[in-house]
C-alpha cells in the first residue's frame, strides 16, 4: 500500500502552521524515517497520517482504514499482567483468525524480534527495550497495511536501541508500509528512506 501526502497544511488552533508539505510519497512496503528536532512536528505528522488529526488543507491519499493501522507507541502500552504471547494474540482476535494460524503468526513475530524466549513471561516484567520490541512484534503479527511508530527508541539506552533497531529490520522486510518518527540516527539508518522536517517542510535526505 502506497500513500501520498499532498499539499498538506496543519496548524493547532490559534498557532502558526506546524506542517506545510507539498508532496511526500511513500511506496508500498517501504520503511520511512521522519526525523527532526523535538517540536518539529514528527508526531503530528504521524497523527495526520493515522487519521487522528485532520489538516486544514490537503490530506493523505491512499491511506488505509483505521483498523488496518498498527501503532508502536513511545509510551509502553501493553497488558502488563498477561504474557508476551497474549499481547501478540490480542491484535488477531478481532480478525477471526483460528488459533493455530494466530499461534504461527505470533511465533514468527517473536522470532523476528528476538523475543521467542520470552513468550510466556508476563509483559509487565519486561525491560524498556523488550517492551518496545514487543510492541514491534505486535505491529508485525497482523500483517497490517501500515505501521506508525513514534520514537520507538526514545527512552532507551544504546544497547537496547541496537536491539530495537534489529527488530525494526523485521518490519523493514515485511509487506507493511512503515513510517517511523525518530531523532535517533541508528533508527533512521535502518530505514529505506529518510525525511527531515525543517520549519514544517519535509525534505528527503
Amino acid at each position, binding site marked *: 500500500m502506497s500513500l501520498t501526502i499532498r499539499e498538506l497544511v496543519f496548524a493547532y488552533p490559534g498557532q502558526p502552521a506546524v506542517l506545510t508539505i507539498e508532496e511526500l510519497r511513500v511506496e508500498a512496503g517501504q520503511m520511512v524515517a521522519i526525523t527532526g528536532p523535538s517540536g518539529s512536528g514528527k508526531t503530528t505528522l504521524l*497523527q495526520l497520517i493515522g487519521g487522528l488529526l485532520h489538516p486544514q488543507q490537503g490530506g493523505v491519499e491512499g491511506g488505509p482504514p483505521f483498523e488496518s493501522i498498527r501503532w508502536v507507541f513511545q*509510551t509502553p*502500552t*501493553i*497488558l502488563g*499482567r*498477561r504474557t508476551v504471547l497474549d499481547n501478540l494474540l490480542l491484535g488477531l482476535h*478481532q480478525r477471526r483468525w483460528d488459533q493455530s494460524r494466530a499461534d504461527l503468526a505470533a511465533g514468527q513475530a517473536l522470532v523476528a524480534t528476538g523475543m521467542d524466549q520470552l513468550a510466556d513471561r*508476563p509483559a509487565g516484567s519486561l525491560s524498556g527495550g523488550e517492551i518496545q520490541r514487543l510492541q514491534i512484534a505486535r505491529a508485525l503479527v497482523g500483517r497490517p497495511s501500515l505501521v506508525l511508530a513514534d520514537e520507538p527508541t526514545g527512552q532507551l539506552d544504546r544497547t537496547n536501541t541496537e536491539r530495537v533497531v534489529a527488530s525494526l529490520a523485521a518490519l523493514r522486510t515485511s509487506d507493511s508500509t512503515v513510517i517511523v518518527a525518530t531523532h535517533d540516527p541508528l533508527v533512521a539508518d535502518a530505514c529505506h528512506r529518510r525525511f527531515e522536517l525543517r520549519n514544517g517542510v519535509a525534505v528527503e535526505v
Partner: protein
Amino acid sequence: MWRLSVVIKEIGANLIAERWRAVVIAVITAAATTSVVATELDQVRRAVAADAELKSAGRYVYVAWTEGADTPVNPTRCLALRHNQAVLAAGGYTHGGPVSVAKAPGELFGARMMVGDMPALLAPHNPPSPGQVYISQTAAARVGLADGRTVLLGGGLGNARVSVVDMSARVPDPGPWVWIPAAPGEKLDECWVEVVPAADQVAQPAITAWLSQGERTVIVTRFLAEDPLRTDPVTVFAARSTRYAWAASGVIVGVVVWLIIWFRRSEMALYRTVGSSRGQTTLIFVLPYMALMVVGTLGGLLLGIYIHGLGAEPTATSLVAARTSLVAASRQSFLTLSIGILIALGGTLLTLGGSIAGHIRNRL
C-alpha cells in the same frame, strides 16, 4: 467490532491475570459491607431493645381518672375499650377496705378490686397464674407469702389462693396492695388502657372522649410520666450518625475500583487500537469487577451477620430485632453495592470518554 465470544474470553483471561487486583476488590467490598452491616445490626438491635423496654415499662399505657368522687370512671365504658382494635388491654380498679393476712399479724394491706385485663396490664410479660388474690413480689417477700399458697385474709375475705406477681416492669414500688378480681360495679377509680404503638398519637384524646360521656370529666394521662431526659429510641435510631455509612462505604469501594481501572487506562487504549469499542472495553474492564463487588457484598453481608449475630436468646424482642436488622442490613448492603458500581462504571466511562484518537494521542 469484536465478537461477544472474544469479549468474554478477554474478560476471563484478564480476571485470571489480574487475580490479585480481583482479590483486593472483593476484600475491600466485603470489608466495607461487613462494617456497614455489623454497625447497622448493632444499631437496630439497640433501638428495638430500648423500644421494647420502654413498651414494657408502659410507654403506650394510659390511665384515666376523675377528680370528683361523685363522677367516677364508668367501668362498662372502660371495659368496652377492649373491643377496639387499637387497644391491647383495658381494665381498672376501685379501692376497697383494709385487708389483713393471718400469716403476717400487724401488716395491713389495701384492697384493690380489679376488673378486665388488669393482671396483664400490671405484668405484661409475666402473666400471673390464676389466683383468687394477687400480690406483688415485693409485698409477698416482706410478709413471707409464696405463690400458690392459700392464706386466711381478714376483712371478710376468708381463705384465698395467692398469686404472687412480678410487677417490677411497670410498678417499681407496688405498695401494700392486694389485688382482688371482682365483677364490674358502679364505678372505677382508675381505668388503664394499653394501645398499639400506631394509635399512640391519637389515643389520649380518643380515650378522653370515650370515657367523658355525660356529666363526667375524665382526665387521661400517660402511665409513664414525661421525662425530658428520656430519649425516644426510634428518634435516636433515625438520627444515628452512621445512617449514611452505606453511602460512604459505597463511595470508598467505587473510588477504589475506579482507581484500579484508571491505572489500567493504557491497556484500555490498547484494546481500542485493536478494534474493541468503548462499550466492549468498558465491559472487559468493569464486568468482572462488578461481579467481584457482588461476591464481596454477599460475603460481607454474611460475615457481618456472623460477627454480630442475630440474637442469642429466641425471645420475641430478639426475633423482631433480627428480622428488622436483616432487612435493614440487606438494604444497606444493596445500596453500598449500587453506589460502588455506579461510581466504578461512571468513572470508567469518564476514563474512556473522548475519541479513540484522544486515547492513542495520549500514548504517542
